[in-house]
């Protein structure tokens, strides 16, 4: 028998959500996880199996606690704009194309958002968040929704 776990698994997953939402998956090393999450390397492997195991646990927790509640009346647009769904955004852009399990989780979450906001508004809000993160100014969604697709042809 090994020593009992000397860390709070919930706290580690919460910190992992923050870390993976702020940096790309590949740029987060196990050294980073050990430093930022305050967990011993061996405990990390024993509990989550791998970096990917921890990432999947963080992504699933993020979707269940941060995305699913938005389908029950919480302001979904505000959450996207405020960056509270950045891990979902990163997962969709970075990991889903190369990891089927991540892709399935992302698809599940986008289905919830589509049901709440409609597919077009979900796409626009996530796209706007990408531009904001890149430091590119973007008109508010209300303005985008109200403007014609080809202003030069509008009379």
């Amino acid at each position, binding site marked *: 028998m090994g020593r009992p776990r000397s860390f709070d698994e919930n706290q580690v997953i919460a910190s992992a959500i923050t870390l993976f939402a702020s940096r790309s998956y590949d740029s987060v090393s196990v050294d980073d996880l050990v430093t930022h999450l305050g967990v011993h390397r061996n405990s990390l492997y024993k509990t989550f199996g*791998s970096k990917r195991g921890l990432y999947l646990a963080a992504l699933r927790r993020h979707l269940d606690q941060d995305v699913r509640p938005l389908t029950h009346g919480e302001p979904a647009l505000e959450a996207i704009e405020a960056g509270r769904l950045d891990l979902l955004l990163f997962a969709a852009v970075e990991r889903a194309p190369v990891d089927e399990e991540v892709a399935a989780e992302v698809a599940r979450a986008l289905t919830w958002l589509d049901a709440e906001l409609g597919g077009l508004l979900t796409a626009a809000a996530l796209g706007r968040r990408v531009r904001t993160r890149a430091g590119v100014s973007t008109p508010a969604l209300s303005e985008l929704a109200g403007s014609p697709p080809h202003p030069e042809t509008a009379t």
Partner: protein
Amino acid sequence: MAKIQITADHVIVKLPLWRQILSLSTGFTIPLENVRGATMDPGAAGEPKGLRSPGTYIPGVLTLGTFYRDGERTFWDVHNRSRVVVLQLTGERYDRLVLEVENPRTVVEHIEAATRPS
């Protein structure tokens, strides 16, 4: 350096002969369901190794063989620490394999693809 081969249902770890002799291990054949995960981890070599039995430990040069720490049994084969992969196991003699391999990224990607639930 260990060579890792991934078949339809096993991960096979092969060691060069002289490393087999020093570590008293001929390598490993592990069913995929006993592999919990694989991670590129250059920093792993900086961790305390624990008690060696049997094996060879030349600090900063070579970590080879069986080491015990915190009730866990880990097999190490690391010379160049920048190319380290950590395999976490279950239901096996070893809890963990820490191995230097030729291409860590490819090994991790192949093991992840092979162990993904379909």
